[in-house]
């Protein structure tokens, strides 16, 4: 429903030809997505609040397995039945972050990143968090029709995918290769876009692929914590 334009530019900006996920992809994505998120949250909670649980402990693997399998129970016996009812499907990026969290907590030994890489990665992560928080506020305002443009509707256009890809790559390009050395988190947002490009999950809208309201809230918590550390405690970002 865009003004008439000609050629490739019109196709690039068009929001009236969304490519939506198939029913099969939506149902598989729903269960797989929530299974990974639940396992990630469970492992993070146990690791934090159960004393004497080191990374890679058998207890953590058990919790992850139970939660992941429990997600596939039939009908209302599955937490996915209720999570889908309330929140639909998590964003691809939330699922990948949860998978990264699982990988981090379940692996018993990890290669330590280079100190220079740590600093660069923290700065790049912070930049992405700021972008995510601002994008979430814009999408929230758009939900209540408080923006002059329809930002969510624009998320169905091919141009939106390009802009989001540019945004998620920008910090890494600006900070150089060091930012991505021996870290998995730099690649999650581009991988989320790749998954979106192939399966169109979760809804066919690029905003839903990279940012859901829960992730947005978590990003705001991260930002507040980072600001508190830097401004009031004088600690470096990665403390």
């Amino acid at each position, binding site marked *: 429903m865009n003004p008439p334009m000609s050629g490739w530019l019109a196709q690039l900006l068009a929001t009236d030809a969304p490519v939506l996920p198939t029913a099969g992809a939506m149902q598989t994505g729903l269960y797989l997505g929530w299974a990974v998120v639940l396992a990630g949250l469970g492992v993070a909670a146990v690791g934090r609040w159960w004393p004497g649980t080191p990374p890679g402990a058998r207890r953590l693997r058990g919790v992850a397995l139970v939660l992941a399998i429990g997600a596939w129970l039939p009908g209302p016996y599955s937490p996915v039945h209720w999570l889908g009812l309330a929140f*639909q499907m998590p964003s691809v990026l939330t699922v990948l972050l949860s998978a990264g969290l699982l990988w981090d907590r379940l692996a018993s030994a990890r290669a330590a990143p280079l100190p220079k890489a740590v600093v660069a990665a923290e700065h790049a992560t912070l930049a992405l968090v700021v972008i995510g928080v601002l994008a979430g506020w814009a999408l929230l305002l758009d939900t209540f029709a408080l923006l002059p443009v329809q930002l969510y509707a624009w998320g169905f256009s091919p141009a939106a995918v390009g802009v989001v890809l540019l945004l998620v790559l920008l910090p890494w390009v600006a900070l150089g290769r060091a930012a991505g050395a021996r870290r998995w988190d730099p690649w999650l947002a581009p991988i989320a876009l790749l998954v979106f490009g192939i399966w169109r999950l979760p809804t066919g809208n690029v905003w839903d692929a990279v940012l859901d309201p829960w992730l947005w809230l978590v990003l705001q918590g991260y930002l507040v914590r980072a600001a508190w550390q830097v401004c009031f405690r004088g600690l470096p970002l990665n403390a």
Partner: protein
Amino acid sequence: MPAGMAAAHASTLLPLPASHAAALMVFWFSGDRESGPNVQIAASQYERASRKWTPARFVVNRFAMGEQLGYGLRRLGNPVAWMDGNGRVNLFVVATGWGGWAASRVLHLRQSSTGNGLAELAFEPVRVLPLSWLWNTSLLVRNAPLPLDDGGMVLPVHFELGIKYPLALRFDREGTYLGMVRVSQRPYLLQPTVVMQSPKEWLAYMRDERPKGKIGVAHTADAGQHWSDLPDLALDNPDAAVAGLGTAPGQMLLAHNSSIASRGTLDLSRSLDGRNWALLTTLERGAPDDEFSYPAMAWADGSLWISYTVDRHRIAWQRFAAAPEPVPAPALTGATP
């Protein structure tokens, strides 16, 4: 009414092809009470041969649909019906998530049975339409789609979490979702009904939630690509749904509650320009506590059909062999943007 059900609300009419045994089909939601856990979508068909409505039966159940979607649906609400270019009945149904009507989503269902006779009519979910970033909540459907000349249609919906605003969704002839456009910037208008003035000029009439409200209007001159608000109509609106129908170029009908604070009177009005309306007939007039609400209109078999809710307990209907004045021509379709 399906047997044993005390509540009925939000009917929608679907004209059927001339080759069909029935002239039109009506869908509504029914259960013990509005928003009750046993609310389902009921349907009936008006048979051409017997000139009678068939006994109603339920055609959509939230448990069955939830099972096919892979997650739960808390409640079902307003249905809206449309026949796609392949002759399949599509239903768009309000389905709530965690919460009341403000947690609503629009569930798109498509006929899964071979035929669309009432006895065999069955549906399967296509998807919950992706309409909002905020957990896709608070979007509802109420009024009939505007058919387009390419076989597609425009489906009016609205947002209602805190503020209200109307949207128009586009679908192609296969029933594939194509996108959305905001219809009005005013945060108190809901339940748009889209009426065609000419193939590219359409008007959207909307319920006004404000006390002492008037029927709101928005206008598009480019077949729904852009909309702009117009001044309210002179017609009062007691925060109640309206239904519009374009019957010919420059001939529009509007079913609406005309009292300022009651749904006790339901009128049918006519307009040539979409701005100035004249009363054609009063469809129902009751006490202020009575309710004749949520009208739906369709043109079928050379007649104007109107259905509406009575006291949230039953669905009533009226048929005008020719609309009171003037005689409407067959309903027109809008242009494809």
